[in-house]
């Protein structure tokens, strides 16, 4: 059942929130041991919350647009009093004393958190293999990765553990797992959703976004969590996005650009290309005008990203030093304590990125690396602006291949190539969404990416809805 339908039935009293939660807890009970989507299942809290929702309905109060809908939360979102781990050993039992803003908004909307989901440690990765607590499996084929870094959230929705989930996306960490797991995943415009309470990986790139089985549910979830937050200085001073009534408008007359540099990028598998082209044809059939466009600077996206993101991360992760919270490995001096704590607490990919980032910012190298990367970022923004003068939305594959097997991308560089299509919209701060569009030769899901200019979520979801409709 969709989130929209569930909420409607709970609000009307037709179905109890408790029964909804029980059904999902049973689904979790059934397959979670196989999948490992969660770091922590919140069974008791979810049932207690469900009872509160039911009491509100009984009292004639409106519990909100997501009343009784179970939702899985990526374990890098702060939840008061509930262990939040970032799938890292360095946080060792840390319980935030406050909620992330999005968590507060979900509660106000009546959504029920059923668990904290697994991720690549500190959101650094594209497969969820970098978790300190073991990987998550793809529900379509448990020998394969669910994608990352929000692999747990994507798997939770794909496995039916919850109709909705929240993830975070810095270089594709919502969209790529959505594509690998055959569900919808969206990254909003930078600043459209508050980052307060999201542990920072790369501050100028991170955004929180929705996972759902269909476009309409994803749109509703994004509406609920979006809108200005005074606690986040990078939050856009706009009200929540209004998307739901855009979805059925169709694509007649819309101009759709196919990004040549992404469709033709090295490593994009033939079946992915084929499904992307099929999606384009479907849109054309529905009345859209198709054009091949060039966004030349996107070919430098990966390089720019793998300087900017680690640089910001090296600074954001400095605070995990054993002084105030989390893991502390004792030593005679403070300096040694820092060393031992961080060595014991961080996994290899996190250490790799901290070192890369520290180097990129260091004296003598700043201009050549971090400084240069930010300039490339401006070029990417400009090339996108030029493309958006001729197009309303842009299309590309989401990921270069279908979900790969565990251990297949042991070489970090090979792993980084997963993000080639998703990274450009993080760098530009633009919204982007992955819509499931059929399967590959191996039967695994393939996702197609729709991109739009800043605050263009409405037209983006419109096109996504049309794509979804074309499959049925």
């Amino acid at each position, binding site marked *: 059942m969709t989130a929209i339908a569930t909420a409607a039935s709970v609000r009307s009293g037709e179905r109890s929130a408790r029964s909804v939660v029980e059904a999902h807890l049973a689904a979790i009970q059934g397959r979670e041991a196989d999948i490992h989507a969660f770091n922590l299942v919140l069974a008791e809290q979810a049932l207690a919350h469900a009872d509160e929702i039911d009491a509100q309905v009984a009292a004639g109060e409106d519990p909100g647009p997501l009343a009784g809908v179970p939702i899985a939360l990526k374990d890098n979102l702060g939840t008061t009093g509930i262990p939040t781990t970032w799938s890292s050993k360095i946080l060792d039992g840390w319980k935030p004393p*406050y909620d992330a803003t999005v968590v507060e908004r979900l509660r106000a909307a009546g959504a029920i958190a059923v668990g904290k989901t697994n991720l690549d440690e500190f959101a650094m990765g594209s497969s969820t293999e970098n978790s300190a607590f073991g990987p998550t499996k793809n529900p379509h084929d448990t020998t394969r990765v669910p994608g990352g870094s929000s692999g747990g959230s994507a798997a939770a929705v794909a496995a039916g553990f919850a109709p909705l989930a929240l993830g975070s996306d810095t270089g594709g960490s919502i969209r790529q797992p959505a594509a690998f797991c055959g569900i919808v995943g969206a990254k909003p415009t930078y600043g459209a959703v508050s980052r307060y309470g999201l542990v920072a990986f790369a501050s100028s790139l991170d955004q929180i976004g929705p996972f759902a089985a269909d476009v309409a549910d994803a749109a509703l979830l994004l509406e609920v969590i979006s809108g200005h937050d005074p606690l986040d200085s990078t939050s856009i001073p706009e009200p929540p996005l209004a998307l739901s009534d855009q979805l059925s408008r169709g694509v007649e007359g819309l101009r759709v650009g196919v990004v040549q540099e992404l469709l033709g990028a090295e490593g994009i598998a033939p079946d992915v290309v084929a499904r992307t082209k099929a999606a384009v044809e479907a849109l054309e059939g529905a009345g859209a005008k198709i054009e091949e466009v060039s966004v030349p600077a996107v070919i430098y996206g990966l390089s720019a990203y793998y300087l900017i993101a680690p640089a910001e991360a090296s600074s954001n992760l400095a605070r995990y030093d054993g002084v105030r919270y989390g893991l502390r490995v004792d030593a005679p001096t*403070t300096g040694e304590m820092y060393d031992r704590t961080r060595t014991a607490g961080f996994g290899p990919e996190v250490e790799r990125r901290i070192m890369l980032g520290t180097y990129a910012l260091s004296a003598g190298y700043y201009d050549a690396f971090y400084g240069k990367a930010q300039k490339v970022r401006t070029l990417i923004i400009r090339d996108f602006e030029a493309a958006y003068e001729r197009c309303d939305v842009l299309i590309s594959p989401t990921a270069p291949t279908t979900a790969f097997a565990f251990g297949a991308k042991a070489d970090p560089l090979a792993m980084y190539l997963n993000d080639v299509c998703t990274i450009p919209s993080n760098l530009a701060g633009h919204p982007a969404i992955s819509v499931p569009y059929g399967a590959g030769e191996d039967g695994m899901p393939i996702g197609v990416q729709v991109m739009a200019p800043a605050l263009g979520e409405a037209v983006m979801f419109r096109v996504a809805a049309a794509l979804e409709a074309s499959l049925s």
Partner: protein
Amino acid sequence: MSVLPEGWEMVIGLEVHCELHTETKLFCSCPNSFGDEPNANTCPTCLGLPGSLPVLNERAVELAMRLGRALACDVQRSVFARKNYFYPDQPKDYQVSQYDLPTNEHGHLDLPSGLQVGITRAHIEEDTGKLTHVGGGGRIHDASHSLVDYNRSGVPLVEIVSEADMRSSEQAKEYASELRAILLATGVSDAKMEEGSMRVDANVSVNRVGEPWGTRCEIKNLNSLRSLGRAIDHEALRQIDLIEAGEVVRQETRHWDEAEGRTGTLRVKEDADDYRYFPEPDLVPLEPTADDIARIDAALPVLPAARRAALAAAAGADPTDGGVVIAVERGLDELATAAIGAGADAARVLTHVEHNLAVDGAERLSSEHLAALVKMETGGELTATQAKTVLAEMVETGDDPATIAKARGFEALDTGALEGIVDEIIAAHPGEWEQFRTGDDKARGKLTGFFMGKVMQASKGQADGKVATALLRSRAGL
């Protein structure tokens, strides 16, 4: 008079951190307050908890810009930057500060003695927490462990960097004192060195006259103006001793030990520290408009330098005159100006301000009363000594000078009566008088005292000492 040996000079630059007088911290709404229970004033943001974000305190920005304008700086578009380094009093292990685009640049501060010291920049940054080292006498080296209090973490600071324009510890103390006066006048900070809301670090180097500047050392832990002066002089002499012994001054940060009266190495700076500055991605740039700056300028109070100039003009004196400087320092310049405007002799007014009004309540003195008192003095009705006594009572009771003088029976003796007394005493002490008339300066000096004592006795203290002395000398034909 220089404290340095012949042929040497010193170069001094000062870095002053002052805490801004805001209700709350720079990036969160925790109270900006001194002396509370450790860690009482903290929240996710100033503790740097995972997921926390900064939100800029507008009042802090306003005060920083106000200070910039008071120091004649350009107030411009600025960008916050992260200064990355690991230390337990730094909750995020980076400090949010400003780097190559600070709020204020290119200003100056005019010292009362006349020197103009350049201000390189005055930028906004957040303060750190405070460490207490336990065991080992409070110093870090012998401590068994340290405690950290984050109440101060996130308090807004402005760091003011001067050009290396000072050449003596006196000038350095003047700079610190004048800066403090400006901070108080503008309401930007309460600038208490002893509470740490104004922290002065000194950069000192020495060189032989005519040679290039030497290697500089930074001195920290200066908790008073006196320490500032002592430490600078000590450090300059230390460096000169090293150089004269054929050794090299190492670039380092030194800690001033007030009890021992010397500096010691805190840390050696072989290379500049690499803080890996980059623009703070969690904050947007600050873009003051021309209207903002005009509004800040319009609201600036009259600054100490302008007050000195105004008083000097009214008194026909120089702005660097001791009496003018002290009058402004004590907030008595308006009183002095008004008294002068009411016809009182300017020099006498300033003298009283400088020497007789360093008391509580002096600012409540009425300018009419002060003017009347000075007129009584210059008109010969009161001696200087009597005037001083009357003035003290005026401050205490608020009464007018004529009433007080009458009540105390003060009247300066008129010249005729005084002449009579002097002549009587001369006649009564012929031996001493002969010695006074014919003796050398030393003998005469002693005997003047003898005769003055007698005159004062006979006149019951009402004789004007200067006039009586002049009479004695003229009687002696001197």
